């Protein structure tokens, strides 16, 4: 099953490489990985999406917790949560395509953030399926370049991941 694990990590050099190293060393999957500092500059927030059996996920969380620089973590998929991913995509846009793309972007609540005579650059946020759906809708033949941020997530309601 797909899981979203959210980690508070000491914002120190080398900490990220330990997390990434752990995944390859123990043969765990990484589907997406995002990391950035938080409002507390001593901490980074890292979100990793991974797949595995319950047993593997339990090992992943335990092994992550063992890393000295991991301060706290939560498996967001265990409760209600919000997940978002940002995508920037460059699309071939000439002639009648331009209107068609514009319509599709509107349907997906995206924005065209840059324009040339032959190219639209579209910005889209949402969960990963929505981003996949957009690519499918415009058709891969018109896609020139895709940049995805990887998943960020946060629990719904009162629950917070903090010190």
């Amino acid at each position, binding site marked *: 099953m797909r899981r979203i694990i959210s980690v508070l990590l000491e914002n120190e050099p080398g900490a990220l490489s330990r997390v990434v190293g752990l995944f390859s060393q123990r043969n765990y999957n990484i589907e997406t990985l995002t990391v950035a500092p938080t409002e507390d500059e001593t901490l980074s927030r890292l979100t990793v999406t991974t797949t595995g059996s319950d047993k593997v996920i339990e090992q992943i969380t*335990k092994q992550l917790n063992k890393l*000295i620089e991991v301060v706290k973590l939560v498996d967001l998929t265990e409760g209600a949560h919000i997940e978002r991913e940002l995508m920037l995509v460059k699309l071939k846009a000439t002639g009648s395509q331009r209107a068609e793309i514009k319509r599709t972007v509107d349907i997906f609540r995206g924005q065209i953030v840059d324009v040339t005579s032959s190219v639209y650059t579209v910005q889209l946020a949402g969960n990963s399926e929505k981003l996949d759906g957009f690519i499918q809708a415009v058709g891969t033949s018109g896609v020139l370049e895709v940049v995805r941020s990887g998943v960020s997530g946060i629990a719904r309601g009162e629950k917070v991941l903090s010190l």
Partner: protein
Amino acid sequence: MELLSGADMLIRSLQDEGIEYIYGYPGGAALHIYDALFRQDKVKHILVRHEQAAVHMADGYARATGLPGTVLVTSGPGATNTITGIATAFMDSIPMVVLCGQVASTLIGEDAFQETDMIGVSRPVVKHNLSVRHPEDIPEIIRKAYYIAATGRPGPVVVDIPKDMTTPNERYEYVFPKKVKLRSYNPAIRGHAGQIKKAVDMLMAARRPIIYAGGGVILGKASDQLTELVKMLGYPITNTIMGIGCYPASDKQHLGWLGMHGTYESNMAMHHSDLILCVGARFDDRVTNATEKFCPGARIVHIDIDPASISKTIDADVPIVGPVDAVLKEMITLVKESKEKPDAEAIAAWWKQIEEWRAFHGMRYETSPDVIKPQEVVEALWRLTKGEAFVTSDVGQHQMFAAQYYKFDRPNRWINSGGLGTMGFGLPAAMGVKLTHPDDEVLCITGEGSIQMNIQELSTCKQYNLPVKIINLNNQALGMVKQWQDMNYESRHAESYMGSLPDFIKLAEAYGHKGVRIEKKEDLEPMLKEALAMKDDLVFVDIYVDRFEHVYPMQVARGSMKDMWLSKTERV
């Protein structure tokens, strides 16, 4: 206010940490530190002949004393030479701190002379690693390194020290922190009371219980508590090869060790048990055999300081995360207070069954009228040293024979590389033990293959007068490899034969030691006695043993715990 250079701060921190010995080898990036060492006499440095040996020495010291070992090496090749030793310590959870020189911080990333990314290279085989970025941080980093190495589930910690962090004429205020606090590292200090209660209830209700103890009992200094609990319950106990000595081997309740080359009765009792109380062990593949066939009728209580060791390979019914000594102590109290008592009839029937298994096989081997059997060498050593020696071993058949036939009644006396299986471990580990236990007998039981992996340390033994006894079970082959080839490759002995052995006696003598060769069976005991009587000499005892012997019992690959070869022809 005291002002010290980074190098002086480092050595001062070691002093304040109470470090008596460090094992190491100098080089460019570590020279400021070596100079600081030279100008004091509290911390003693032991100069090895290869950095790998320094790590094994620190490791042997740590295993014998329960205290963290310390290593000091230079950058680049000095640092990379420590990796096998660090990985060895990591796999067996041995506390140690490895201090590595590094090129100056201004040169890092430029492929400078003797630059290696030691933080990156060591990362998968350390509990943690730290690099020094400001000289004034050194005392805190050293304090942290030992704290992390020695607490929780212990392990090796590497500290990377760029040369410009130790520059002699740049001085900083020296403050040795009294305490370390790490918000992200809080090892458990006691087990969950509810879980412990549940475990005790299960122990009382069990009809075919067995205690399965591991190296965690020794690392957690919990042998006394374990022995008390097991005695009180009257249940059978087995332990892993890492747990040897955690419970007295001569006691009747002890079934010997378990797993691939464990005793018949241990493996049978595990397989047929209805309750396994695992204490500080980790169900590794050399114990469980095929996990899907593992002990089908057993419920499992698992006590470990490391939550990640629990339900990793075998699911626990009752996990208990905590230090084994504290958890066992609570269990003892609960057992004493318990209104429920074990079902005496069921336990008696269980023991009757176990005694039948014991009688059916037990530990045995066939003797020969003229060839020396490796097992009888170990038995003779056990008799001659009254079971009191520290015994280190290398890796191979001799290791298994040593573990099977030397009966340890005390913890910290059997010292081997169980997790990584590092040939070359035995001699330096023995040196680390001898240095701090000069009045104890220290034996290194080895093979002619393994001993050559760190043979250069005979020179270190001369320099520091370390009269260990090297017992070379010379079967003129990489015996364990050959055994597997006999069993799985129709005896095609690919590269498992060593056709050009040195004259070990002359070799020992060349290094300034004594050598004894034993070839005849009738010479075995008297000549061993003579060798052991040379208290002040390192004696290399080269014993020609049966070249065709195999280690048994041996679990059948991919079988259950109870599927074993008991000899070349008997399979159960």
